[in-house]
């Protein structure tokens, strides 16, 4: 009897030793409105655990009200969905570094409405073991300001202040030296050459519409070119891809002729619409180049695959060609085939350069301050990021976050 009891005790005790430890439920589980969004989403936050692993799964169960039944809405390994450096700026972080963070967006399976309270709980599963978290509730709401982008707003306001300050300084002292831009110096030469040869000048405003900055820059330069064209009494041809750009350019060219004292020389037909289709437009402009052989071709604005088709045809006719674009992918083609190319920001500086108006020239100085600031930030950021990695210091992220664009 005694040996049998001992045997039973031994087996009983053995079973107790071999039993797996209970799963600990997720700690610090919270449900909050997702910050800086348009609403209809909730954010789930809980503490990371040293025992998180790919075999341990986390299930998210949500209900439309405390009384309603819970539905499983997501499942993932417990060693995923951490808050990583760079996900949020330090001033708008919904969870601590290393915590778990899951954004629960409205879906067909689980629609989330603004202003309605939802309850959520987590289920931790590994093998046959389970552990539930506390039930937490949260209400989704749209936000009126994206606090993650406050650094962006501060820089925009500061840059505006610098620009206005530069303009005021240029008004007081209008003699601001400008770096020579060969492409813009050649504008006069190109127009003069066209006049001497008795051939027209072709001016293209690019592929964009009036909502695009390079197109606006192209129309502004057109005004300056048209004044010189009116002065020399040369023919100007501006074929368009967008009717609104055409209407704007008609007005600009007309006013340029009036300013030049040659309103009688203005022709409404100098601006004309061809088509909005990329290659049909290119074929038509190539045809104009080959038939009418303009002595000067201007390519200003944004361009795509048509750039080389246009400029190579122009080069074959022997025209002097001046291009200006911010389309960095097309710059090699322009540089290769045109006599002069305004690269990137030079397109935006052209208006100030050609007109020499102190107010506009002042903005160029403001831009230079902006570029100097960015260069300083690049050097500082590179140094801090290197120090952060080498010395394993998290503190540098407080500075680096200031210069990141968070969405």
């Amino acid at each position, binding site marked *: 009897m005694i040996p049998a009891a001992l045997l039973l005790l031994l087996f009983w005790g053995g079973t107790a030793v071999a039993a797996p430890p209970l799963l600990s439920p997720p700690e610090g589980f919270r449900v909050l409105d997702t910050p800086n969004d348009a609403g209809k989403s909730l954010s789930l936050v809980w503490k990371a655990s040293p025992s998180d692993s790919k075999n341990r799964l986390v299930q998210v169960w949500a209900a439309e009200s405390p009384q309603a039944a819970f539905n499983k809405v997501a499942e993932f390994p417990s060693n995923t969905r951490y808050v990583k450096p760079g996900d949020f700026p330090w001033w708008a972080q919904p969870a601590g570094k290393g915590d778990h963070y899951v954004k629960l967006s409205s879906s067909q399976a689980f629609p989330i409405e603004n202003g309605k309270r939802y309850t959520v709980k987590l289920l931790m599963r590994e093998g046959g073991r389970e552990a539930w978290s506390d039930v937490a509730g949260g209400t989704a709401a*749209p936000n009126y300001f994206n606090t993650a982008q406050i650094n962006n707003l501060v820089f925009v306001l500061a840059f505006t202040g610098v620009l206005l300050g530069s303009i005021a300084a240029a008004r007081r002292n209008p003699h601001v030296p400008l770096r020579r831009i060969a492409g813009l110096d050649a504008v006069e030469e190109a127009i003069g050459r066209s006049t001497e040869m008795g051939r027209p000048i072709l001016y293209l405003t690019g592929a964009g519409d009036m909502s695009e900055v390079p197109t*606006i820059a192209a129309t*502004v330069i057109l005004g300056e070119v048209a004044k010189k064209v009116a002065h020399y009494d040369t023919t100007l041809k501006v074929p368009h891809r967008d009717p609104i750009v055409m209407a704007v350019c008609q007005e600009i060219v007309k006013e340029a002729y009036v300013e030049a004292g040659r309103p009688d020389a203005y022709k409404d037909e100098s601006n004309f619409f061809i088509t909005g289709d990329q290659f*049909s437009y290119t074929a038509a402009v190539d045809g104009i180049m080959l038939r009418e052989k303009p002595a000067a071709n201007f390519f200003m604005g944004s361009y795509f695959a048509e750039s080389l088709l246009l400029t190579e045809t122009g080069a074959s006719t022997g025209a002097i060609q001046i291009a200006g674009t911010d389309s960095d992918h097309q710059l090699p083609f322009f540089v290769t085939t045109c006599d002069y190319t305004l690269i990137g920001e030079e397109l935006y500086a052209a208006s100030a350069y050609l007109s020499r108006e102190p107010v506009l020239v002042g903005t160029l100085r403001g831009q230079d301050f902006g570029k100097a600031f960015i260069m300083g930030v690049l050097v500082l950021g590179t140094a801090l990021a290197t120090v952060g990695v080498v010395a394993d210091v998290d503190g540098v992220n407080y500075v680096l976050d200031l210069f990141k664009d968070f969405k």
Partner: protein
Amino acid sequence: MIFLKRQLPLAITFVMGIAFTFQYYIPHPVSEDAITNVSKWMQIISGFALFLGLASLFHVHAVKITRQVPGWGFSLALYVAMIGTIVIGFWSHGETKVDGGQTAFGWLYDYTMVPLQGTMFSILAFFIASAAYRAFRARSREASVLLVAAVVVMMGRVPLGQFLLPWTWDVTQWLLNVLNSAVRRAILIGVSMGAVALSLKIILGIERSYLGGGRDQ
């Protein structure tokens, strides 16, 4: 008149410019709806503006035909093609396919527009060759550097080049990822600063020549 031509557009530009600058920072659905509505308005205005474009197109080519200027036959071809396409488009109710079958409008698009567009695009290959020939003539030190870099990149990007000169792959990657990326980023930084400055000048009414006329009127 000066109010309608100058002050009112400047006021609208200022208000809309400021509003949509701040719209970027406002995630609220009201802000999203505002930008969606403005986009729709822009599409409507573009639709109406197309009539302006058509009027210009018809006018320019009508003048060429009536005056029989050299090349007026092209203008006639344009009229025939355009009116023909419009008639066939109406006849096909603007549909390119009906019940799985191609309409006349669809046929016209697939067998005239698409091949013509393809032809134009394919010319690019020949133009790249001729432009490259001009650019790669080693007439200066810069052109020589360009020539060497281009040869290395070309060898590093084609299987035969990698087979013959395996080191070109690494050099190509370095040229593209380091030198090329650095220069592109520098250009983009300048472009972004310029675009922001021009936008601010337009919003604040400092640059107003896009309205036509001088800046100080």
